């Protein structure tokens, strides 16, 4: 599998590089599988990455954790939420029930994840509604009102055409505490614990993730 490009500017004067864990949640048919626009497939990847340049000097890299289907039968491990800095909860604007499901994921996040987690609500499949407006089942105003009440960022997106996806990641990045350094905020390879990998160069063959 091809390796992704280098994760933006690092080090140097006045530049900031921060890495955050982002978890992706939502019913299986809402299109969250296509949410990373570079994604080839979930299969075999520990997690994918998305890099956002906030400005010339600030680069934010998201380590995107997919549920790998473990949510299907209510079997998502606590490890999934552990140290997550941000979450994108996806619903399908053409399926009213998917917003209810999204609301229950938000509750689950508030119960299991860090108190400071930043949650974004994404109403996906905007492309379908642009073509056929009568397909819309969840009004923008209703979802926005819920997001506001629950303290969530809100976007309507099309993961298929990438509409608003970058804006969504950028909005999350702007909310993240870029100046605080925590275990997940540091640069890759600078974890707080010991590294198990052998001293000799150990290339990560087989994963599309270049972190």
């Amino acid at each position, binding site marked *: 599998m091809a390796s992704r490009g280098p994760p933006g500017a690092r080090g140097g004067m006045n530049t900031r590089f921060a890495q955050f864990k982002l978890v992706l949640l939502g019913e299986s048919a809402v299109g969250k599988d296509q949410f990373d626009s570079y994604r080839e497939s979930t299969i*075999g990847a*520990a997690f994918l990455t998305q890099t956002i340049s906030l400005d010339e000097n600030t680069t934010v890299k998201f380590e995107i954790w997919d549920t790998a289907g473990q949510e299907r*039968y209510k079997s998502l*491990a606590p*490890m999934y939420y552990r140290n997550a800095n941000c979450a994108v909860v996806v619903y399908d604007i053409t399926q009213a029930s998917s917003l209810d499901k999204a609301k229950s994921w938000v509750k689950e996040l508030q119960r299991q994840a860090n108190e400071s987690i930043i949650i974004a609500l994404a109403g996906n499949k905007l492309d379908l509604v642009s073509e056929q407006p009568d397909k819309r089942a969840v009004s923008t105003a209703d979802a926005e009102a819920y997001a506001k009440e629950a303290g969530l960022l809100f976007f309507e997106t099309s993961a298929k055409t990438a509409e608003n996806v970058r804006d969504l990641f950028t909005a999350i990045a702007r909310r993240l505490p870029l100046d605080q350094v925590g275990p997940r905020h540091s640069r890759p390879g600078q*974890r*707080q*614990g*010991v590294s198990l990998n052998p001293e000799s160069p150990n290339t990560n*063959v087989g994963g599309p993730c270049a972190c």
Partner: protein
Amino acid sequence: MDEIAPEYDVVVLGTGLTECILSGVFSVKGKKVLHIDRNNHYGGEAASLNIEALFKKYGNYSPGEEPWKQYGRVNDWNIDLVPKFLMSSGELTNILVSTDVTRYLEFKQVAGSYVQQGAGSRATVAKVPSDAAEALRSPLMGIFEKRRMKSFIEWVGTFDPKDPATHKGLNMATCTMKEVYDKFSLETTTRDFIGHAMALYLSDGYISTPGQAPEAIERIRLYGNSVARYGKSPYIYPLYGLGELPQGFARLSAIYGGTYMLGTSVDEITYEDGKAVGIKATMSGMEPEMKFETKAKMILGDPSYFPGKTKVVGHVLRAICIIDHPLDGTSDNDSCQIIIPQSQVGRHNDIYIACVSAAHNVCPKGYYIAIVSTIAEGSANHHLELEPGLKRVGKIKEQFMSAPIPLYEPLEDGTKDNIFISKSYDATSHFETTTDDVRDIYSRAAGEELVVEGLREGIQVAEN
């Protein structure tokens, strides 16, 4: 909700570490895996529980009381049910690295490994020396003994089982460890901490077994290499507790297409001509509960899913202690292992203490979790068997101890009935026997040796 497939290559029952590693390996190898646990959490017998769940499991409080409330947020606690550490250079580390599961976990060193000498009021603990230089500084030995120990450790470093020139004239095929110790004129107390605190044997049987010397030397070497890897102690430990390990391998399995179902009880294993061919199960926690049936080419699982197909080979005693101070004599370390060799306290099996703390994200700041364990030798008064260990722990805020925990092993190797059963987590302080079991089950079930190096290269993925 997606349909359960009509057939799987492998159905795995129980989400203990052994089961999760095997599930991960089979999924990576392209097998279609269904992984089930009757509990609503991962880890089975090797789970880490929060303090409320721990109180509820042991039931040691009066109705109406909520004693966990005085210990802060319940989710800040991840208390292991089975006390073990990873050897830094051991096989589990190798599997974690080869499968990339290290990406989901962070590890910290265990700060020290200690051994007790003497008993009662005269008991002292000292750090286990890991290399020749430490041996020379160790209070465990007198001045002349230190030199003998130094030359022994240096010899272990150069020992090559295939090269008789390194064997000191001993015949390794028949040699006992006693003969090796004799060769270096080591004193009894030195043999005691070498065998128990470095080779990590639980009893003295290894000393007189002909031909066992190379294994013992290999174990001492593993200890030394593991200490050399990060210093301080041979052990590492995952942040948030050992329960993270099965979760990490379960995620690996899921990423390669494995299907996970917690809260699902197995109602029946179906057989054809004496061979297991599938399961009938019920997933609860939803309305209505979901009953389903699926075929399986083979079934793996922990002993609790196969009553009648296992035997009890011993019992372990464990006391989980919540304390608010570091262990005495360990330089206020945030974590440690203390071994009380059997000979020091008139037993046949060693007593182990494993201690971790807030530094490992397993409890709030100021607390420590110490687990005292040993193999049961009597049929009553089990708390007395643990007493030397509990004394060493000092003042205890909460103590959780159950009846002796049976250790199970399968009666058969699975080739006849397609059922491959793991062993219970034993009394050793590390995972080397667990990974031996993983390799053993894999070779019986898959008909080939497990090679983890390069496992994720050239992978295949099951069709869903």
